[in-house]
């Protein structure tokens, strides 16, 4: 959990993912489209991946990945990111971290 929270606060936009997860890939594509380059942690390639997965599940997302943190705060999984984007709330959160 500490590792997850530490990594989550390291940079502005953090995405916990698995290299095999295609929903994670979809979220990556969305961020690309929005001009944001999140720090991606592929937990299936991390030696502590199992623990990280448990920690992410405990944070309350219905799936451990994808898990998006913006400014150190948990935004959520694909569901939450999509809802936020459609309601117009995602871009304002990303503004400080956009590349253009």
């Amino acid at each position, binding site marked *: 959990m500490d590792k997850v929270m530490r990594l989550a606060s390291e940079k502005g936009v953090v995405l916990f993912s698995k290299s095999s997860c295609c*929903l994670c890939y*979809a979220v990556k594509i969305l961020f690309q*489209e929005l001009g944001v380059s999140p720090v991606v942690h592929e937990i299936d390639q991390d030696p502590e991946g199992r623990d990280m997965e448990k920690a992410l599940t405990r944070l309350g997302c219905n799936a451990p990945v994808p898990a998006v943190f913006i400014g150190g705060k948990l935004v959520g999984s*694909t*569901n939450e990111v999509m809802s936020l*984007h*459609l309601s*117009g709330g*995602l871009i304002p959160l990303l503004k400080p971290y956009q590349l253009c």
Partner: protein
Amino acid sequence: MSSPSTELTKRMAIYEQFHQISRWGDVFNSDNSPNTGSSTIVQVDVRLDNKAEYISCEQVEPSRSDQETNKPTDKIQRRLAQNREAARKSRLRKKAYVQQLESSRLKLAQLEQELERARQQVSRCGMHNQLGNALMQGIYISSASDTGYFGLSGTVNSGITAFEMEYGHWVEEQNKQICELRSALQAHITDIELRILVESGLNHYCNLFRMKADAAKADIFYLISGIWRTSAERFFHWIGGFRPSELLNAVMSQIEPLTDQQHLEVCNLRQSSQQAEDALSQGIDKLQQNLAQSVAADLSSGNYRVQMAAAIDKLEALEGFVNQADHLRQQTLQQMARILTTRQAARGLLALGEYFHRLRALSSLWAARPREPA
């Protein structure tokens, strides 16, 4: 219960029934003679169905003539009660139906066993005459039937057949609601009453997404194939349903005039839903790629157990995609409703409903079109 011959007739008819991918709504509505097996299944449900649960177009009109201030509240209460009653009846129907399905499933399994025995007997006797070949072919085609929701063991996917039944009712109710919306917009009913219709309409779509979530757990390929929709709708099928952009396109022309603020919000919604749609599209393309790679690993080997295990893992992601796509559809609908006034939302819902109704009508017309004899 009944004589052996009618029992067998019934069982054969049930077997045929399960082979048709027909709308259960049609089964309920068509005239079933007492001797067909389908009457066994339909019995309980027809009784419940015949009660007038839904408000028809005709019922709405007379009551709208009184426009006193306390009438809307009564109407709201009445409508809510009717909705609750309809939901309760729907649950009862579903329960009875599933129970019927379970017993029919057992009968079907027995029948398949009998067929298998007959088939073995035929091949043992070495019947090579016309009748024997025809029988063998018939049995082979039957047991190799790829309707998707029963395997060789003869199990019926009751989750899917329940969905088919519910969806048939959903479409019927949708048609009624479109009708009501149209009359309501042409007459000059109050915004409060229009709100009731708009809320009903939005709730109705919520019901659809709930039904689809259950069906996704029962058989994801069924939802993805679009077999539950009509042919013209299927042409536009995207990850288990309509595209959010399709929804917005249908609605756009009917909601003008918009305020500047609304215009801005609608533009933003169009852009964000398109971005989300594109992201999911690329995600599912990636999933296809990954799946193909898994299946195609080491094609020279006759033993594909490892590849199958990897492929099954990938397929599990499919349900997530359909859920996300449905979530996107629902969010697009909710956001539109939030941006629009009651009257605009009513026009939007009418436009959307009418659009899909026309696609369904197009499918029927296409299927029935006169064609050159071969």
